[in-house]
């Protein structure tokens, strides 16, 4: 049996459907983002954890030049090492029939035993693993095989360590080391251009001259191990063998990318919901305050006939709970749907063997509780203020609002404002709290939109900086080993090459006091025209004759300012340690590597200048001929095509951005819609008498609407600059959240972005106000004058 009061609550919900939906919509956004962010994160995290566990993903990784297997017992004896898995790792250029451009690949060895490696075991997806007794058998990274249509039984030709080999594909595999795969010199996964080959240990050893030795090591730690101590011990052991510095998972590219994505999702679930929940709390408060004000006499009557204060308060709180229920259910539905869609999108990026959308229950429970708490706390004050009135007081009409003279009067007289405008200004100053809610809601909308739109500005700047200002080469050749500068003459002889400049890249560990970072040091030739350094104004930075130039981010991590001394430890021959001054910092959006003038580096190394990378400016029509020449040159280990990288980068980014931009625009507009619509409805309900009086006095519909619409638009205008500031702050948070060691998003918000966000919010606010204006136009003047609140 539904009680009469409950029936009233239900009917109130139905009667106020437009306002209830407007609040429920804002509430639903908060619930949705929470469910979406944490649900997607939980799904990704669970899939990753299960995958890591099952394939025994290592915790410490180290590469070296050539380590004899006899060192293994010593490594195993490092306190904290639980298991270790040595392997051989090299690179290859794959030659596919009918494919002009060279395809590069990582080559990984599989144990002689034929069993899975102890750590980082590949997961077979099709066919079988290579037979260790057959050196020409190879398993391929599944996405690469699929992109190139290579099936088990197919053959391919690869140049490994300068030797051309013909290989037979036995199967497709995935690996926990390659969930997110980017090739050398690339910024994004490109499955058609970069692959991974798994071959038998003997074959790998023969190709790399590693019999009885290895060059890559993975460790699993004991439960109580201290990772930094193990890394130091391992570095000491591997140093004589060309160790390039051991690192934990945070420097493993695939893991680092996935981790930063998970953190972004977490941040989204943390930052956005409070905005929406706060706005909804205010809205519920506004709407219920008004509803209760209108029902003052009814409340008095209920009390007079014997309802307790508690029963009446519960009635209105149920109404609030009803709004929470609607917001929660809609938010759950949208969050579930978008979460599943987003998880599918992730499956394209992150090569997990399984990615099941399986959100845990807690975001659902938590979001429902938060929604309930939000609406109840919003309702609480309004309910309390009115239910405690004695019945006789409640049944008499409320005292009219008292206005006082203030600053506004001076303004009105000075600016000769119309009386209708004065009515707007007085209403705002009379109820500053309510005006603040509207301003806050508008500002929140603008912030959300700016934080979403500015990514286009940042990406544009990045693309311009990376591809137009900093890297003017369209091809970078990666040499199999360092050569003297005569290699540049060979490069210039390649087809289509207009200009060639060398570079020398050295793996280093940079240290300042107790802070250290693994990095690579690039030596640039004098008067470099192709690969240039750019400052934060986009101007070319001339490399100083001596000393180091670091990206701001890396300098920050090391706690360094220009003028400080940096300890540079070369992790490749000559394996020396130098103290070098930091001469300048630069803004660098791609990569976090250190820079030095070539003469300065080779002076430190006491060697003649060398190159191990060659940047080329190439006639685009000659690319095919160049690719063919590169494929037949074993000295070239890899090739990065900047033109292709650029188009791929912009395409991927734009696809991802357009989805999130649509979602955030909708969210931003919903806040404005909810806030302005409710404010307008409440204002209309309160002032219907006044507005009808204006009509009687001969004011036109438009003039009367101005009092209503003008107030809301004025508040919207006040909210805009607040939103600009908030949006900039949000953008800074986004920059922090999205920047990785590979890509540093610049904090730049263009004027157009401020303008677009403002225009969208203004238009939405105007639309919401005009919907309410239509109600105003339909009001019967005579009825409105008769009905006294």
């Amino acid at each position, binding site marked *: 049996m539904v009680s009469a009061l409950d029936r009233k609550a239900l009917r109130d919900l139905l009667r106020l459907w437009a306002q209830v939906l407007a609040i429920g919509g804002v509430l639903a956004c908060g619930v949705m983002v929470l469910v979406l962010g944490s649900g997607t994160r939980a799904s990704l995290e669970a899939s990753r954890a299960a995958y890591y566990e099952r394939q025994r993903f290592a915790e410490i990784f180290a590469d070296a030049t050539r380590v004899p297997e006899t060192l293994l017992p010593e490594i195993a004896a490092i306190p904290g090492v639980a298991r270790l898995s040595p392997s051989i790792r090299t690179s290859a250029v794959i030659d596919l029939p009918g494919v002009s451009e060279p395809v590069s690949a990582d080559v990984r060895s599989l144990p002689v035993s034929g069993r899975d490696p102890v750590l980082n075991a590949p997961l077979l997806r099709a066919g079988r693993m290579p037979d260790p007794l057959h050196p020409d058998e190879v398993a391929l990274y599944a996405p690469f095989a699929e992109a190139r249509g290579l099936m088990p039984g197919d053959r391919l030709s690869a140049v490994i360590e300068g030797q051309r080999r013909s290989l037979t594909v036995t199967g497709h595999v995935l690996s926990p080391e390659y969930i997110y795969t980017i090739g050398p010199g690339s910024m994004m996964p490109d499955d058609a251009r970069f692959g991974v080959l798994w071959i038998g240990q003997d074959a790998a050893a023969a190709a790399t001259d590693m019999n009885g030795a290895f060059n890559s090591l993975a460790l699993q730690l004991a439960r109580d191990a201290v990772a930094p101590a193990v890394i130091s011990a391992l570095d000491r052991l591997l140093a004589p063998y060309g160790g390039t510095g051991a690192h934990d998972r945070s420097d493993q590219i695939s893991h680092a990318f996935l981790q930063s994505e998970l953190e972004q999702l977490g941040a989204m679930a943390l930052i956005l919901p409070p905005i929406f929940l706060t706005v909804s709390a205010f809205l519920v408060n506004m709407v219920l305050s008004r509803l209760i004000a209108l029902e003052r006499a009814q409340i008095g009557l209920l009390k007079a006939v014997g309802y307790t204060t508690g029963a009446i308060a519960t009635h209105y709180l149920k109404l609030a709970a009803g709004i929470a229920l609607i917001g929660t259910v809609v938010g759950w539905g949208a969050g579930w749907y978008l979460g599943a869609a987003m998880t599918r999108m992730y499956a394209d990026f992150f090569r997990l063997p399984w990615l099941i959308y399986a959100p845990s229950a807690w975001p659902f429970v938590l979001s429902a509780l938060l929604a309930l708490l939000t609406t109840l706390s919003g309702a609480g004050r309004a309910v309390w203020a009115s239910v405690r009135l004695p019945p006789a007081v409640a049944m008499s009409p409320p005292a009219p*609002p008292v*206005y006082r003279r203030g600053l506004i009067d001076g303004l009105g007289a000075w600016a000769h404002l119309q*009386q209708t405008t004065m*009515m707007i200004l007085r209403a705002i100053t009379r109820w500053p709290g309510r005006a603040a809610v509207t301003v806050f809601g508008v500002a929140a909308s603008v912030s959300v939109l700016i934080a979403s739109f500015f990514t286009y500005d940042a990406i544009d700047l990045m693309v311009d900086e990376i591809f137009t200002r900093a890297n003017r080469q369209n091809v970078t050749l990666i040499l199999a080993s360092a050569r003297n500068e005569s290699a540049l003459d060979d490069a210039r002889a390649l087809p289509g090459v207009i200009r060639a400049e060398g570079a020398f890249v050295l793996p280093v560990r940079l240290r300042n006091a107790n802070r250290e970072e693994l990095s690579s040091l690039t030596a640039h030739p004098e008067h470099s025209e192709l690969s240039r350094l750019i400052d934060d104004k986009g101007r070319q930075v001339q490399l100083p004759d001596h000393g180091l130039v670091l990206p701001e981010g890396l300098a920050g991590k090391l706690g360094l300012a220009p003028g400080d001394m940096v300890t540079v430890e070369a992790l490749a021959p000559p394996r020396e340690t130098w103290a070098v001054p930091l001469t300048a910092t630069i803004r660098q959006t791609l990569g976090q590597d250190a820079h030095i003038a070539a003469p300065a580096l080779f002076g430190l190394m006491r060697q003649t200048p060398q190159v191990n990378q060659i940047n080329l400016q190439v006639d685009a029509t000659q690319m095919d001929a160049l690719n063919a020449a590169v494929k037949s040159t074993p000295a070239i280990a890899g090739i990065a095509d900047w033109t292709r990288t650029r188009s791929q980068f912009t395409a991927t980014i734009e696809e991802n951005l357009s989805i999130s931009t649509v979602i955030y625009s909708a969210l931003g507009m919903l806040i404005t819609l909810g806030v302005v619509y409710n404010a307008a409805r409440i204002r209309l309900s309160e002032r219907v*008498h006044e507005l009808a009086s204006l009509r009687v*006095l*001969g004011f*036109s*519909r438009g003039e009367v609407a101005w009092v209503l619409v003008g107030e809301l638009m004025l508040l919207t205008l006040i909210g805009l600059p607040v939103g600009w500031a908030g949006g900039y702050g949000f953008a800074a948070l986004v920059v922090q959240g999205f920047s990785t060691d590979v890509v540093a998003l610049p904090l730049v918000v263009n004027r157009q972005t401020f303008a677009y966000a403002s225009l969208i919010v203004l238009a939405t606010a105007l639309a919401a106000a005009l919907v309410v204006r239509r109600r105003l136009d339909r009001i019967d003047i005579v009825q409105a*004058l008769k009905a006294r609140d």
Partner: protein
Amino acid sequence: MSTPVLRTEDITRIYRTGAVEVQALRGVTMELSEGEMVVLLGASGSGKSTLLNILGALDLPTSGRVFFRDTELTRATDRELTRFRREHVGFVFQFYNLMPALTARENVGLVTEISEDPMRPEEALERVGLGHRLDHFPAELSGGEQQRVAIARAIAKRPELLLCDEPTGALDSATGISVLEALCEVNRDLGTATALITHNAGIQAIAHRVIHIADGQIAREEINATRLDPKDITW
């Protein structure tokens, strides 16, 4: 008494709420002339407010015609009716209908700002004896003072027609008389045709002409040979 300012021809007004039909007016023909003060007297529910609303173009009759001078209001558009109210009519209601957010001066200013040749707000307020309360908000004024602000607001545009719906209904006798005095002064000094509805029979003595309304019809009309000053009427 000269040219009629406003006249009605056999107007009826039927309200439909759901299945119920209420006939508020049943064929009213009347006119109001320049400088004339007419009191419409009737019990509550007699249809006098409906008549006043139609005279002021706040409502349209179900049948019949209404003319303001030579213009037929019953054929006018919404925009034209708004202009009619704006330029020619002043209203005074029982509950004042002042804007609580505006001071006395500003409430009057509300109308003078949109009028062709208005009085200054201060002049209109002085005329109703409120020259000393210009900058008070409605909440700071007594009921009689608020009603006099409403009258000042109604006359400030120098209307040709002043329509008053129970202007003293919410006031005690002393305050009510001061409000009636203000209305009579305006009628005399400005020559504004004034229609005043009331259920208080004592008030009829201040009118040139009294129209008795009952059951939505004009029951009878009387012309007062001698008018009384408001302070002499019996309340």
